[in-house]
């Protein structure tokens, strides 16, 4: 009996590392898992499935009526695309509003508003993001930031800045639901910082932060990446330059992802 107990104990001890590693290896396949993802587990900057909100039937356009999209020049292109669609008489993301500015990041969004700052404007007035969200009375706050943060602040500090920004938004607009979108990749020909590896690692840690804080994660970057984690060339409008901004086709893929990965959507 003693021998059997010792054997059992030995087996258990031997299995501990394997048991600890197993869930991590499966983590990106287990949407909603509370085990933090580790970038070291991903040799390539890709996941096999999207993280965060699961796919469902497309939601109606009105789902976005009380939404605001916050972002940098990447989201600014989405804003232009949506504006063009609406002005052509079409319906696109309901009556969603936008708070965008080129060069915006979660870091400089925390700065004081000044004549030199790059805070977005709401109805022509430059202001802090949390104030604009409150004035808009937005109930769904979609944020995509990081492209202007990761290379400058580093990944960890960029995540901390995002947490601070979200906390400020929720302080002013407690009823808002937060939807953090993954930062999208750059084309293979881009070699400057932030690299796709940096952006991917940032996205994984951003996902962890979302799970920890109860925010929704919308993995838009998943549909923008090829098998090597690079932005599809067809989705890139500036291949000769920064290699990160979208074409209309890229915007369509983005909108399609948003409408099929909404809160409460079912399949």
């Amino acid at each position, binding site marked *: 009996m003693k021998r059997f107990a010792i054997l059992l104990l030995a087996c258990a001890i031997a299995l501990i590392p394997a048991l600890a590693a197993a869930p991590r290896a499966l983590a990106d396949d287990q949407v909603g898992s509370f085990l933090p993802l580790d970038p070291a587990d991903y040799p390539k900057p890709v996941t096999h499935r999207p993280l965060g909100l699961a796919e469902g039937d497309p939601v109606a356009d009105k789902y976005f009526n009380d939404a605001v999209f916050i972002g940098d020049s990447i989201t600014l*292109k989405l804003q232009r695309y949506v504006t063009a669609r609406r002005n052509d008489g079409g319906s696109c993301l309901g009556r969603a509003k936008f708070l965008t500015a*080129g060069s915006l990041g979660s870091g400089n969004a925390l700065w004081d508003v000044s004549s030199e700052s790059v805070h977005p404007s709401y109805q*022509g007035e430059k202001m802090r993001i949390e104030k604009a969200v409150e004035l808009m009375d937005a109930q769904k706050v979609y944020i995509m930031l990081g492209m202007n943060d990761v290379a400058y602040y580093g990944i960890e500090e960029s995540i901390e800045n995002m947490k601070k920004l979200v906390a400020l938004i929720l302080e002013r607009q407690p009823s808002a639901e937060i939807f953090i979108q993954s930062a999208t990749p750059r084309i293979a020909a881009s070699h400057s910082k932030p690299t796709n590896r940096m952006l991917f690692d940032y996205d994984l840690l951003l996902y962890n932060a979302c799970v920890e804080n109860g925010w929704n994660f919308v993995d838009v970057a998943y549909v923008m990446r090829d098998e090597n984690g690079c932005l599809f060339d067809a989705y890139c409008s500036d291949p000769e330059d920064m290699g990160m901004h979208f074409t209309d086709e890229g915007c369509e893929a983005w909108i399609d992802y948003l409408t099929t990965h909404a809160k409460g959507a079912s399949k």
Partner: protein
Amino acid sequence: MKKLAALALAACLLLAGCAGGPAKSADLSAVQAALSAQYDLSGMMALSEDDLLDMYGVKTEDVKQYAALIAKTSTSADEILLFEGRDADAAARIKAQLDKRYQAKLNEAKDYLPDEYAKISACKVETSGNYVSLIVSADAQAMKKLYQDSFK
């Protein structure tokens, strides 16, 4: 005394004459059409009245007529904004909003779009009577001339 009054009246009439009679006006839709005919504006899109408030803080009640075009991509600073205010006060309010827009464009382009920054720097918000304009384009000077020549 009579001579003085006559002199004053003559001076007033002369001044009124120098003011050029009725103020010149321009049809901004026609200007937009002329610009579209002369330049390749396929990379730009027209903005609606709702966009004027959302994007610039310009209130519809201040606007008598307008033409507003903006680049379809986020990496081009091209923008053509032509407004006629309902009166001088309205024009002043519109100018104040376009000044803010101009500064925001400069700030946003400064660190990552050097060519666009140079393009914006070469342009400015201008006022003529109740008309306010901001034309940001590589062809801004020629476009501005077309716009100014349209006043009759």
